[in-house]
């Protein structure tokens, strides 16, 4: 499903965020990405949906080298990949409902589909009563859950989640992890960057650990450290 072939990402100012990373992730896998702050987790995730381009190496998603993708095809790649960003990236001038609906509008879903799916997914993340609020009217954790809802509402093949529980209390986190687990069981590949030792240790899934841009550990049924 996803393959990184000797990928290096150097930001301006010679910051090596990822160094010679080679990884293969199969369909329906659930992968934790761990490592200290600044070790390259977000970079790893942003390379997969072409938000960033690698400085060297090749990346394959669903068998295609995304480095060869012409720029007008990138939106279509992204529609198959739901992403929960670390800073949520919600549209400030749209309500919660419109934010989630936007991911469906973009792919041209008919209105009646949008009108049934959006409330359903919002209920699932516990925000059924906030559909009409704007993002700045939500608490941090609520915004994070909107972001999760939007990433998943069009049932993507791949779900990238960058610290999706960073702003959530332990109880809510457990709920979200159960949701991700359920999504994963339906066949979606899930890659999740996290700092939450408790979650990683409890779930016991594949763990890839980064340190200063290098993959220092890749362990099946691993723990946080």
């Amino acid at each position: 499903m996803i393959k990184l072939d000797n990928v290096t990402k150097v930001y301006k100012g010679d910051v090596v965020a990822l160094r010679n990373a080679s990884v293969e992730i199969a369909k329906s896998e659930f992968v934790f990405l761990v490592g200290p702050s600044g070790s390259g987790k977000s970079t790893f995730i942003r390379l997969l949906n072409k938000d960033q381009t690698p400085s060297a190496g090749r990346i394959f998603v669903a068998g295609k080298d995304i480095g060869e993708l012409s720029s007008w095809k990138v939106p279509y790649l992204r529609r198959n990949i739901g992403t929960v960003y670390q800073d949520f990236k919600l549209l400030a001038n749209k309500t919660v409902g419109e934010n989630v609906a936007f991911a469906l509008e973009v792919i041209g879903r008919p209105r009646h589909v949008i009108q049934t799916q959006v409330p359903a997914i919002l209920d699932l993340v516990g925000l059924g009563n906030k559909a009409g609020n704007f993002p700045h009217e939500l608490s941090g954790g609520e915004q994070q859950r909107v972001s999760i809802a939007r990433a998943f509402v069009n049932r993507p093949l791949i779900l990238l989640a960058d610290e999706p529980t960073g702003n959530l209390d332990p109880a809510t986190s457990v709920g979200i992890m159960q949701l991700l687990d359920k999504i994963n069981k339906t066949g979606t590949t899930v890659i999740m960057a996290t700092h939450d030792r408790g979650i990683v240790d409890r779930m016991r899934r594949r763990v890839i650990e980064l340190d200063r841009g290098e993959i220092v550990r890749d362990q099946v049924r691993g723990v946080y450290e």
Partner: protein
Amino acid sequence: MAIKVDYVVRETSTNLFRNLSITLASILTVMVSLFLLGMALTVNLGVNKATQRWQGGIEFIVFINPGATTEQVGAVDKALRESPEVEKLTYVDQNQAMEEFRSLFANQPELIDTVTPDILPPSYRVVPLNKSSDTVEALSEQYRGKPGVKSVVSATETIKLVQKLSGTLTVFMYVVAGVLLGASILLVLNTIRMAMYARRREIEVMKLVGATNWFIRVPFMTEGLVQGVIGAGLAIGLLVLFRPFYERIVPDPTQFPLFSGMVPASSELFGIYVVLAFIGCVIGTIGAGVAVTRFLDV
């Protein structure tokens, strides 16, 4: 991918209203520049019509009596043609005179109906070699009173001045209108660019969620088009409102008969309006087009 119409309408109107004041500013500038252009075109049309007999250096006109005999006409014709002081001579027959009359009084159809070509005098338009007023006067005097000649009319100081002033004036108005047109394209462009800049994070997010460039662009482009069209519409409206006022400030035709042609007819004005509307669309489209292209390609 088909972009839904209701999506575009919704986004465009949201944007227009969100930045109402800047939208108004750019609509206003489009309006002013098109209004000026319209005025320049109108004045130009009027002056050209009013002075059309006098264009190309014609200094005096010999009107022939419609009832003159062929011999009489032949004599005048010969005298003019053989005069060494005449540089160029144009004969306007009764049908051409009727044409001219028609265009001069296009705004007074009731007048046109009362006139038939056979009552209008044919005429010789004379461009003399030497244009100093004394020699022109002397030359034209030679034909006054000749048999078959109805009258001889010279270009007055006034006519020449009007031609010169209005020429200068319309050039000036064209230049100002041109500068303002440039400014309005720039302004529409900037309104859209600022709108996109103000929403740059949103746009970035839309792209990350999988929106195509066109999906993002189209509402902004419609926004520019709407600004251009509304600006043009307002300019046309102003011109229509302004018309009675314009007709009033044109010097009183009974006092200055020359100006009777300066009030343009509705059909002529309609042509001007169409041109303005077209330019409005072009301004909006170019402005917005450049804005979205430059912004999204970065």
